[in-house]
């Protein structure tokens, strides 16, 4: 009787709930069985720690850390941009000062970083949080980060799919059997396509948080297939049970709507870069809309990102999409809609690289299916630190090319003989406060400052490349003109030690370390002039590459911006607006002809060394004697 009653009650409960149980499976370090799968290393569990650990932090800890950054640092502001299906607040964080203006008075550009769109990709929130942490830790670096905070608006959404992420952390070692399998299936079949628990990818509409519930484990929308661009183009996008189900309509999900709200904080029309942060594969998937200039800039940017990671022992390889094609990812959406550089960053482990094990096998694991989503705890700290500098370089690049702010020439007595500064917003004017006559053969100091830090230093304090980059470290300065004796070009010998991060003989950096250089030189006398009276107009020509290899805006009079997929008002040496920049020749000085060389026209020549210099002067004097009309 007791047994019968129990049976009836149990049957009634099952009937009432209408819920069947899915088999719960476990990932283990080294045990295989009918419901266990060895991955070959300890299976990570979420750790309650606000500070970064050798491992993966629990969502509550990550969220608390984000909130801590926002209340502790004036440079960080939080906003709620929506709620998940299960009514959890989705937070975004803005990094930068509160004035939304650059130091030049222009509206700041904005960058958007999205994290944790797919629940099981635990690498993503860690990498994004590390970026947030470094932006605050280095906020007073007087270098790249301080420049970014002063002049840009960095928007970071660290965890978009909170419901799903929590579900994966609730069951860090457990999943449910793959669709179509049952208790009699082989372990390989059961673990083939696990969909809930640790391997949940989608969001959680009408999904309870009980792992074994059979009826809801396939539910949810792939938030990276819910965009308007290319919506529904993949076969699985319209199948609600599919891993890549795109939802009933584009942007139908509260989480994707929150991402759009995050973009509005840029504001949207100021966005210049978008990254969606995923794992795994160790690549960048780089969308290519039909805009060649945008694609050229984006692909160059991706190569620089790769170089930064290569220099640290990783190799995030850019995989360039076919032009005009795409799938409904958020990276495609922003690429095609906003015409800005975007990509999907797939954090390691690698996948598909010849000669490198895939997924968890990259770390010596068994290579079990889906193990790439389970990065060993011991690898995430290195990964976080490898990717932060690459992302910061992207911001620095997309903040825009540098332009000259100030040019000064000071004579050996410490007096300014030339002083010019650019002022104004989108249209600038060059204010020349002093323009005295210079003398050939006299010593001068040339000081030039820029609107952004141009160089960084290594731990020894020496000028160095930004991680993985290869740019010209030295500024290039020439003096050109035509004194009636023909065109001439003379070089001023600037080196990488010309950059300033402290006071040198009364000259120092402007706002950020190494945003200015000072070079001492002797004004050449071997400049051909047709008369020894009066003055010759000359130009000072300045060329530098910034940390990311961008050339100067050759004409600071029109401020560089971004529109239609490319830079605007970014002039080359010849004054043409384009995407490459060039040499700024805006600085006109007067030099007395008295000490210059009365000679036949010369097209060019070198400056610098003292011995060749003296020889040229001697030759010049000879020429002067030979052709002096009064001697005939």
């Amino acid at each position, binding site marked *: 009787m007791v047994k019968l009653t129990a049976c009836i009650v149990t049957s009634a409960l099952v009937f009432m709930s209408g819920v069947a149980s899915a088999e719960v499976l476990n990932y283990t370090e080294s*045990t295989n069985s009918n419901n266990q799968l060895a991955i*070959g290393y*300890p299976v990570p*569990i979420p*750790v*309650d*720690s*606000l*500070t970064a*650990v*050798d491992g993966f932090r629990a969502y*509550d*800890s990550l969220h*608390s*850390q984000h*909130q*801590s950054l*926002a*209340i*502790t*640092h*004036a440079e960080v*502001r*939080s*906003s709620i941009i929506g709620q998940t299906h299960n009514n959890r607040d989705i937070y975004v964080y803005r990094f930068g000062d*509160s004035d939304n203006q650059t130091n030049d008075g222009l509206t700041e550009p904005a960058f958007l970083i999205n994290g944790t769109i797919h629940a099981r990709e635990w690498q993503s929130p860690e990498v994004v949080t590390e970026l947030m942490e470094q932006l605050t830790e280095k906020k007073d670096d007087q270098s790249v980060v301080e420049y970014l905070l002063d002049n840009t608006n960095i928007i970071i959404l660290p965890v978009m799919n909170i419901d799903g992420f929590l579900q994966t952390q609730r069951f860090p070692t457990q999943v449910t059997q793959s669709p*179509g*399998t049952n208790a009699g299936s*082989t372990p*390989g*079949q059961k673990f*083939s*396509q696990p969909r809930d628990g640790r391997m949940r990818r989608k969001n959680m509409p009408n999904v309870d948080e009980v792992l074994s519930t059979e009826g809801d484990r396939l539910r949810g929308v792939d938030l990276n297939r819910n965009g308007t661009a290319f919506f529904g183009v993949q076969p*699985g996008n319209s199948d609600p049970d599919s*891993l890549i189900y795109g939802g009933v309509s584009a942007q139908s999900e509260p989480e994707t709507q929150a991402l759009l709200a995050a973009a509005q904080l840029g504001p949207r029309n100021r966005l210049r870069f978008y990254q969606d942060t995923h794992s795994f*594969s160790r*690549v960048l*998937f780089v969308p290519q809309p039909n805009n060649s200039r945008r694609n050229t800039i984006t692909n160059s940017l991706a190569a620089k990102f790769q170089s930064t990671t290569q220099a640290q022992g990783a*190799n995030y*390889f*850019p*995989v360039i*999409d076919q032009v005009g094609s795409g799938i409904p990812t958020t990276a495609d959406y922003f690429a095609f809609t906003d015409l800005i550089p975007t990509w*999907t960053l*797939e954090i390691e482990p*690698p*996948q*598909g*690289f*010849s000669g490198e*094990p*895939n997924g968890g*096998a990259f770390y*010596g694991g*068994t*290579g*079990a299916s889906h193990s790439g989503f389970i990065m*060993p*705890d*011991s690898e995430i700290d290195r990964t976080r630190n490898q990717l932060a500098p690459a992302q910061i370089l992207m911001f620095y690049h997309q903040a825009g090319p540098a332009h000259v702010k100030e040019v000064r020439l000071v004579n050996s007595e410490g007096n300014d003989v030339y002083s010019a500064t650019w002022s104004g917003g989108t249209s600038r004017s060059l204010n020349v406060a002093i323009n005295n006559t210079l003398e050939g053969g006299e010593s001068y100091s040339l000081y030039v400052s820029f609107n952004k830090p141009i160089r960084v230093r290594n731990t020894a304090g020496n000028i160095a490349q930004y991680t993985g980059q290869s740019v010209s470290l030295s500024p290039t300065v020439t003096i050109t003109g035509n004194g009636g004796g023909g065109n001439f070009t003379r070089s001023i010998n600037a080196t990488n030690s010309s950059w300033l991060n402290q006071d040198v003989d009364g000259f120092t950096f402007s706002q950020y370390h190494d945003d200015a250089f000072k070079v001492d030189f002797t004004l050449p006398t071997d400049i051909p002039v047709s008369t020894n009276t009066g003055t010759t107009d000359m130009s000072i020509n300045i060329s530098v590459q910034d940390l990311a290899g961008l050339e100067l805006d050759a004409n600071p009079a029109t401020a560089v911006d971004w529109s239609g997929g490319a830079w605007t008002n970014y002039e080359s040496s010849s004054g043409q607006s384009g995407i490459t920049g060039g040499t700024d020749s805006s600085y006109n000085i007067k030099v007395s002809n008295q000490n210059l060389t009365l000679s036949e026209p010369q097209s060019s020549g070198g400056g610098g060394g003292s011995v060749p210099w003296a020889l040229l002067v001697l030759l010049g004097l000879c020429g002067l004697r030979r052709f002096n009309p009064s001697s005939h």
Partner: protein
Amino acid sequence: MKNITMTALYVALGLVAFKSSQAVERGPLLMSEVPSDQVYSESDITAIKSQDVEAHKSTATNSLAQEYQLYIKVKAMVVRGLSDEEISFLNQASRHKATAFQRHPEGPIAVPVFDVASLAKHKLFMADVYHQQKELSPLLNADPASFARMSTATPANTQAAKLLLEGSVPKADGEVSSASISSTMTNLLVDQYKHIDSESSLVLLKALVEATHNYSAAEALLTSKQKSPLKHHFLENLGNYFSDREQEVLLKQLIANESELASQALIKYGQLPLSTLDADLLYTKLADPKLGASSALSIARLFETSPDYDRVINHVKAHQKSRAATANSLLVLKLADTAESKATLQDILDKGYLQFEDMKVEVNTWLN
């Protein structure tokens, strides 16, 4: 025969290790680079996996079926007592190059469907582990110093020793389970592993403490200078092994050391029973620029059972000039996320206890 087998195993492992260290210059395999007859859809893959393995033996006509058959064969191999032929087979399989691919869901790269090579490498490794287990087993009680030295010599030895210490391996002739480790032997091993202080010794200290609940082993593990995820894992489950009082002592030590475990230790500390923990410690740490936020989370969680909003207000009032103390006090109230905590935040704003303008802006954002 045994020697020949083990030689074959070592040669195989050496080849595997060499293979894994090759640098890679090129990018991933693109879909466009893979012959179309080697690319399979999700439904192809599901179909092949759902079939009876035996069926493939006669119908393995495409590369997907062939690879699946090979994968299943490797997976089914029992690593204890592998023959020379089996080691040779695994060695060959460890160099297998994939011939069945699917498209990556996010972009145009080709991903191997089965990773036969990695599975074979792991089988070889585990074969070595089981061999080393036999070597180590007799030493466990007889010669702890040699056991400690050998167990940290190679990854396979460490794994073997760990399995022995965990007692997770079914007993067989000559094998020893953790249950047979005496406390004297445990203490000797703890001393040895403390002295060695390597990643391997941490693995074994953790196995020891999990098996024996030995306090000294836990202390040695958690206070080691080595950084390791194992320490975080262990700390996460500290309550499984020690009394509240023992935990309190260990956690206070970690907090005082300000090690990489300090944030986690502070949060764990707040989870101790109210009768055990010292709330003053948590409030004192609110002024710590590095650990104050962890303390805030810890206090916020305490508020779920015993809120003390007045104490937070008083803390703000008493530390009005300290950015860290003020920010973390506010954070307590934000993370508590109750009607009372919001009212307290509003109160702090209204009564002018908050001196920092940027914090006022952020708190207003929280409240609106």
